[in-house]
């Protein structure tokens, strides 16, 4: 087998490698009904499958894909077929067909058939297990190579590729299915695919299905520019006709079209839906005489999520706000598992212009590895910026890299051998970029030269481990200018050297420069500007600070990146001189007059509510504001809602405004350290199997505005999780929601399990399909027809 694999490697790099054509099309010709599982035929009538493979080998295919496309645990569920039996039978069919020839057998793996988180409910870890089962059986059955194909979700491919690399020694090809806009259905671009899969160690990447060869060609061309790996293409025989269910390109036209691929050096090719052995035969004949090479790929520094590629060819801002250091409110969110707060910090920075987000969750009393997984999952569910995994714990770094759907940066290693030897292998394995701090066990050197020497050492080590040069960034370190004034110049000197002489990207945490000085903004932005001029391209800053982003925006004009100053003009047009804050403000009386907080809440004026709360805190305690002003205001809004004078949108708007007040109050309490204003903890969950959570989220917002601490377990929540959390957090009230008739059973199961646990909490249920009667029948304490009703019940429970 080793021979075959070596030959495969050689073929992919030097000569043409012909794959096979469609299996499904051939099976339909043999009488497979639509909707029937093609995998069953391997067991029932293996000779049909073997014959199809044989026809492909005779046509010139050097690799045949075993009929294992859908042979995963999920797709075979309920069919009576077992994964191992199907794969063994399918591989046997293929091996029988290639016997006595040079052709090889691929274990063919298609999508699981269920979407992964966050859009779907399948976890990354479960996807990994499903693929692991397949690849282990496939290798044992004698496959020569593993192919993932027709994939649309990069996360799923990542799970598969990791499963293959960690559990077998076979080479792996990954091909995804793109639409004409160059993206998959889940929004993944070819460039993101190339960056992530090349980093994870794929042996070939490519495109299959969905389109004909002419439509795929421009996308394949882009792919060939984005990766140095062999590019693989299996196009459909044109586009399908929904009436006749046939494809519109003949074998000779298909072959003619495949010539353009050969001309740009793409040499691993076959066919997908609608193609037959005849197509392969024609392709082989048509392209073999073409001897062209791939153009040399210009390597760039690329970071990405599936839908967002950030190329570091100018200043790219790394947002620093997801970090508990020195932030009490953030620490509280981590302790309480308040992921919504963290998600908001991510969105806020993205909107302020961050290109990459630093993620640090290290603090005493928190399991950093687990929290890293949770936070990365949360952020990538609401924001498509690439992440920078920031930790000193190698386990937390690995956990973050593994779960992140994209190509990340690791922050950081330094010149210490121990760091280099533990962290760089993780960086290599997950194909990340890495920041090397210009310091070692002896601390931060005080001259630029010594820092550069460390940077060079880190670069050498990284490259010796197979990390590409463009993925190594150096942090020359910012020291506080008020303490070590001469060091600012040394840092800038080192930055210039790293950029010009080493040819590497520079990272710097900027704001430290001004620590201890008044009017810090001036020093910070001035240093930032000088550093960018010296060669800093990845500043780690707070993008919410307007002056800092203004400096970046201005620099981009002067560096020529912001062509015609377009973005600059967009940012600054309409910016007028900051108005002096009104000094003759009327005193708020808190009632529903047009200046009071009650009015602001009833009208949903967020900023005004927050401002008024700050004012009120000067004369009232937090609890007084909540009990005397906010809650009565919300009650009045609630009454109007019940009377149908206002409707759900206005109710939510008021709640959102009062949310701002609560944020101000929470911060005030944290600053004073005077405990909490929580009126009690409530669990909310959308039950197992259901993913419609907007209703639950509305209820959450309203409950929080009455001062309850909501533990939001999310959607598709297993009954066990609800029970465990209720007991662990000693929660008095549990709210469950279900929108589908099909998931009402899970609700009942959850109620039963809560009751059986003996934990004496009350249960309130709601959701579109629920009724008072059903709620009673399943043993809930209350049926809430809307958010208002839930609040009323909570008041009853908590008194």
């Amino acid at each position, binding site marked *: 087998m080793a021979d075959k694999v070596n030959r495969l490697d050689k073929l992919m790099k030097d000569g043409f490698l012909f794959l096979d054509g469609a299996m499904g099309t051939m099976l339909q010709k043999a009488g497979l*009904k*639509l*909707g*029937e599982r093609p995998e069953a035929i391997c067991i029932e009538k293996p000779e049909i499958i073997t014959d199809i493979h044989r026809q492909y080998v005779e046509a010139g295919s050097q690799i045949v894909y075993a009929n294992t496309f859908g042979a995963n645990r*999920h797709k075979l569920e309920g069919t009576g077929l077992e994964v191992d039996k199907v794969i063994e039978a399918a591989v046997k069919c293929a091996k029988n067909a290639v016997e006595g020839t040079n052709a090889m057998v691929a274990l063919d793996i298609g*999508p699981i*058939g*269920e*979407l992964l988180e*966050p*859009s*779907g*409910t*399948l976890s990354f870890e479960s996807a990994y297990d499903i693929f692991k089962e397949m690849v282990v059986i496939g290798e044992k059955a004698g496959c020569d190579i593993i192919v993932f194909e*027709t994939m*649309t979700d990069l996360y799923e491919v990542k799970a598969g590729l990791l499963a293959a690399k960690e559990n077998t020694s076979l080479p792996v090809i990954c091909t995804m*299915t793109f639409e004409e806009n160059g993206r998959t*259905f*889940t*929004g993944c671009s070819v460039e993101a695919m190339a960056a992530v899969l090349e980093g994870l160690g794929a042996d070939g990447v490519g495109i299959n299905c*969905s389109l004909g060869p002419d439509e795929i060609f421009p996308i394949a061309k882009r792919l060939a520019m984005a990766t140095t790996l062999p590019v693989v293409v299996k196009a459909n025989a044109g586009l399908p006709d*929904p*009436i006749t*269910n046939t494809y519109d390109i003949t074998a000779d036209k298909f072959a003619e079209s495949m010539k353009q691929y050969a001309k740009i050096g793409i040499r691993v090719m076959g066919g997908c839906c609608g193609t037959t052995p005849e197509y392969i035969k024609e392709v082989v004949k048509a392209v073999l005489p073409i001897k062209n090479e791939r153009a040399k790929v210009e390597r760039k520094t690329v970071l990405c999520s599936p839908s967002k590629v950030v190329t570091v060819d100018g200043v790219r801002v790394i947002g620093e706000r997801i970090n508990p250091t020195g932030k009490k409110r953030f620490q509280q969110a981590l302790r309480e598992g308040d992921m*919504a707060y963290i*998600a*908001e910090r991510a*969105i*806020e920075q993205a909107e302020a212009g961050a290109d990459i987000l630093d993620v640090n969750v290290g603090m005493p009393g928190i399991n950093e590895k687990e929290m890293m997984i949770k936070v990365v999952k949360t952020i990538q*569910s*609401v*924001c498509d910026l690439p992440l920078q995994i920031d930790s000193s714990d190698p386990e937390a770094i690995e956990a973050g890299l593994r779960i992140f759907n994209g190509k990340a940066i690791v922050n950081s290693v330094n010149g210490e051998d121990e760091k280099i030897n533990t962290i760089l292998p993780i960086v290599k394995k997950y194909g990340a970029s890495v920041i090397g701090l210009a310091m070692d066990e002896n601390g931060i050197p005080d001259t630029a030269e010594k820092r550069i020497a460390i940077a060079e050492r880190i670069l050498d080590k990284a490259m010796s481990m197979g990390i590409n040069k463009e993925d190594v960034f150096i942090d020359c370190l910012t020291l506080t200018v008020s303490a070590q004034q001469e060091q600012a110049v040394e840092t800038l000197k080192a930055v210039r050297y790293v950029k010009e002489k080493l040819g590497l990207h520079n990272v710097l945490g900027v704001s430290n420069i001004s620590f201890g000085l008044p009017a810090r903004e001036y020093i910070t932005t001035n240093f930032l500007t000088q550093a960018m001029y010296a060669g800093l391209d990845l500043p780690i800053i707070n993008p919410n600070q307007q002056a800092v982003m203004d400096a970046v925006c201005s620099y981009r004009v002067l560096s020529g990146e912001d062509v015609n100053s377009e973005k600059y003009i967009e940012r600054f047009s309409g910016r007028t001189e900051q108005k002096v804050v009104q000094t003759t403000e009327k005193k708020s009386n808190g009632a529903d007059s047009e200046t009071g907080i009650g009015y602001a809440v009833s009208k*949903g004026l967020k900023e005004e509510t927050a401002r008024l709360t700050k004012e009120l805190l000067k004369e009232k305690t937090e609890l007084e504001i909540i009990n005397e002003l906010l809650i009565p205001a919300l009650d009045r809004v609630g009454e109007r809602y019940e009377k*149908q004078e206002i*409707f*759900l*949108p*206005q109710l*939510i*708007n008021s*709640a*959102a405004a009062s949310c701002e007040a609560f944020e101000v109050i929470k911060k005030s309490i944290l600053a004073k350290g005077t405990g909490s204003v929580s009126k009690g903890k409530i669990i909310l969950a959308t039950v*197992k*199997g*259901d*993913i*419609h959570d*907007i209703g639950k*989220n*509305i209820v959450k*917002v309203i409950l929080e505005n009455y001062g309850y601490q909501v533990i939001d377990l999310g959607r*598709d929540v297993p009954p066990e999780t609800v029970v465990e959390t209720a007991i662990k957090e000693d929660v008095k009230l549990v709210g469950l929601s279900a929108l*589908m*008739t*099909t*998931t009402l059973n899970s609700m009942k199961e959850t109620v039963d399990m809560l009751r059986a646990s003996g934990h004496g909490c009350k249960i309130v249920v709601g959701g*579109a*399909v*629920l*009724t008072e009667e059903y709620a009673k029948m399943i043993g809930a304490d209350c049926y809430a027809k809307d958010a208002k009703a839930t609040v009323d019940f909570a008041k009853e429970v908590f008194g």
Partner: protein
Amino acid sequence: MKGTLNSVNRNEVLKYLGYKGGATDEKTINDIQRISEDVIKTAQPAVTYMVFDIEDNFCFSGTNFIPGGNDIKKMLEGCKKAVLMAATLGMEIEKKLRAIQITDMYSALIFDCCASSAIENVCDNFQNELEEKVNKQGLFLTDRFSPGYGDMPFEQQKDICTMLRTEKNIGVSLSSGGIMIPRKTVTAIMGISDKPKEKRFRGCESCSMFENCEYRKGDKSCGR
């Protein structure tokens, strides 16, 4: 293939939002307008369909699929062919809704309702286009009927997705709980008949929400 989304029905959105008649304020109307435009801009409407001959027992030819319940059979009575269709707004709507829910629940709720109306528009546009084509051949299209309407089992959604290969063709898959993702997705059946058929399935009586429908609780109809 691409679908067509050209409008979001404001009244429909208001109904989804719980307005039961009465005055609507200017802010809400403006916000619905703004968010509708965002939905239309963000959506990636896609449709896939196949046409089947129908055998005497209502089995779709070349498959093992027989639509369940009596209501759909009544609709397909006398039809020699039927269309299976699936339409979706795509994944970007799903992603955006998730993000807006974090920062702005008010807009998220309106966004959700606008998207619900938008997917109906995509289905209507496809149906109209197809009807035109069919009429030219001297044939007629019946109503559009989805699993979960009347007595047709909701679970048959899965069969329709499998036959139409929605995962591959329009990027729609089912969760283990049987929910289509992206959630703004509709599957449906239409009959092709050689004489015009009365459009039957309008009104609450054939709707599986009949018992629990919020509109009906308020003595209103959802207007279907």
